[in-house]
């Protein structure tokens, strides 16, 4: 049996990156994710890796772009305002089809906002936060263990699809300490990086670029990227279900709020209500089919988010007319994190309204 550690979510993500073979990290200090650069500034030099504290978030994402162009596994991390600055580089990486992992331990906004747990970056993360119309896979861990496991998964997805991949958490997940079993990196067959620059060495020139000016070139490029997103939707959706089989109300939420909702659903079950939890783990691709099935069986979905309503739009698109969708949100800010009891009250009300 593997050893068990007691670590913070942020450290777990950094450990997962190292286990995944990431030896290059570029970042900039920002709360509440600074444990990640701190950990890697200590560990990467021991592994002959490179750690750079960049001049800015923009500098860091472009260092990631450069390192990734060479075919190595590389990562950056930040929190919401810093992720905004990185969007330029993420768009260029999406356009040039460069792998790379970006961790967003998000905070509250808009603007300087605050450092409290928040899910206000959902739209920015899943709808293509930069210019030009693209998507990147977005993974939403809800535990320290998942911070570790999903970071490794993010590197595999990045290499498999030649795309930046984002891990979206918040201070609840990043700062929380719990048990971690540091599993070995999963074995997955990945394509050769025949596109990476290396110095042409007498062979064909390789160019990593996102500028396409030839007649029809960019249109074809965009359709090819679109086709890639469709494959991701087919193959890469991950979700978790709890007590959904006979549920007449499905509660859904991602990341930190799903942890709270899980407790609330368990309490509702104790009260005899047939309630289940559907947790999307991939936010892009969104687990549309699995959610539509569960929602269709139940007839009603309650979406819970730490914002004024973002993922709820994807839930509505997913379930269509198959189920009624209602929403409960707590926008971020000090003291705004709902308790299980608060969510239980909401569940009771929504359950009473329709199910009983």
């Amino acid at each position, binding site marked *: 049996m593997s050893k068990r550690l007691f670590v913070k979510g942020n450290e777990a993500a950094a450990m997962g990156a190292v286990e995944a073979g990431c030896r*290059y990290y*570029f970042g900039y200090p920002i709360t509440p994710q600074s444990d990640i650069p701190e950990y890697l500034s200590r560990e990467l030099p021991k592994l002959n890796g*490179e750690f*750079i504290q*960049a*001049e*800015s978030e*923009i*500098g*860091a994402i*472009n*260092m*990631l*772009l*450069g*390192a*990734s*162009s*060479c*075919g*190595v596994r*590389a990562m950056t991390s930040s929190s919401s305002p810093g992720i905004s600055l990185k969007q*330029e*580089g993420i768009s*260029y990486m999406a356009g*040039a089809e460069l792998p790379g992992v970006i961790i967003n331990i998000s905070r509250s906004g808009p603007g300087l906002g605050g450092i409290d747990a928040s899910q206000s970056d959902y739209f920015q993360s899943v709808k293509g936060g930069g210019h030009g119309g693209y998507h990147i896979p977005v993974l939403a861990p809800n535990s320290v263990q998942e911070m570790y496991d999903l970071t490794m998964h993010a590197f595999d997805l990045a290499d498999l699809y030649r795309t930046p991949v984002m891990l979206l958490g918040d201070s609840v997940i990043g700062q929380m300490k719990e048990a971690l079993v540091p599993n070995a990196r999963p074995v997955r067959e990945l394509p050769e990086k025949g596109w990476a*620059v*290396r*110095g*042409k*060495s*007498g062979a064909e*020139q*390789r*160019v*990593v*670029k*996102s*500028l396409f000016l030839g007649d029809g070139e960019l249109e074809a490029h965009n359709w090819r990227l679109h086709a890639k997103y469709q494959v991701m939707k087919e193959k890469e959706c991950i979700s978790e279900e709890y007590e959904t089989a006979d549920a007449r109300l499905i509660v859904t939420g991602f990341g930190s709020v799903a942890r709270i909702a899980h407790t609330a659903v368990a309490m509702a079950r104790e009260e005899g209500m047939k309630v289940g939890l559907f947790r999307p783990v991939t936010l892009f691709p969104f687990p549309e089919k699995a959610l539509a099935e569960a929602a269709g069986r139940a007839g009603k979905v309650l979406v819970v988010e730490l914002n004024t309503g973002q993922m709820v739009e994807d839930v509505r698109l997913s379930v269509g007319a198959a189920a009624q969708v209602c929403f409960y949100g707590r926008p971020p800010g000090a003291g705004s994190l709902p308790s299980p009891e608060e969510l239980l009250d909401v569940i009771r009300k929504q359950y009473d309204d329709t199910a009983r």
Partner: protein
Amino acid sequence: MQQVFKRPQSLKDVQTHFCPGCHHGTIHRLVADAMDLYGVQDKTIGVASVGCSVFLYGYFDIDVVEAPHGRAPAVATGVKRAKPDNFVFTYQGDGDLAAIGTAEIIHAANRGEDITVVFVNNTTYGMTGGQMAPTTLVGQKTSTSPYGRDKSKDGSPIRMAELMAQLGGVAYSARVAVDSPKHVLEAKKVMREAFGYQAEGKGFSFVEVLSSCPTNWGMNPLKANARIGEEMIPYFPLGIFKKEEA
């Protein structure tokens, strides 16, 4: 018969898209000459920036990464850290390097990244149609300084080669011009020296090249060429501002 002049091996045998009288072609040739001298074509990774020079992968027969506007020194940092045995250079214009990319160039230089930066200063934004650049001379009319650059509102042109020389991580910083055979020969020597610093692992090297932009200056190639000596060199003096002996 002895061949005394030929295309550098690192350049492709193609025509460029540059305007008549533009100096990019000459500067490309000088960069290729330096690559050939050290025999590094096969292990060079160039970083292209946004502007007229973005197409350098069409002219240099080397691996290239395209950087967002101004970010070439950060991209080159990532490349060089991942591939320390490769030869890495950026090729950037004045809008790219001295305006939107100021943070990236200063910090890559200050870290002493072992890369070479070729900085083409033509006192204007070329590709976007001749707007005011950080290097535009006081009084110079451009499409966004129609009354001439006003020092009290727009500030003074930035002398990047001198600025670079102040930074601890910089091993070599120089300014050259390519407006006359004499200056081209001097520029060739400087370019070789700058690339030599990287070839020998001596640290960050920077070459500013004064260049003409006849199209956006509204001049014919000969007049534009003459402007370099008449107006630019008096403000942007040629010379080597830092040369660290390793």
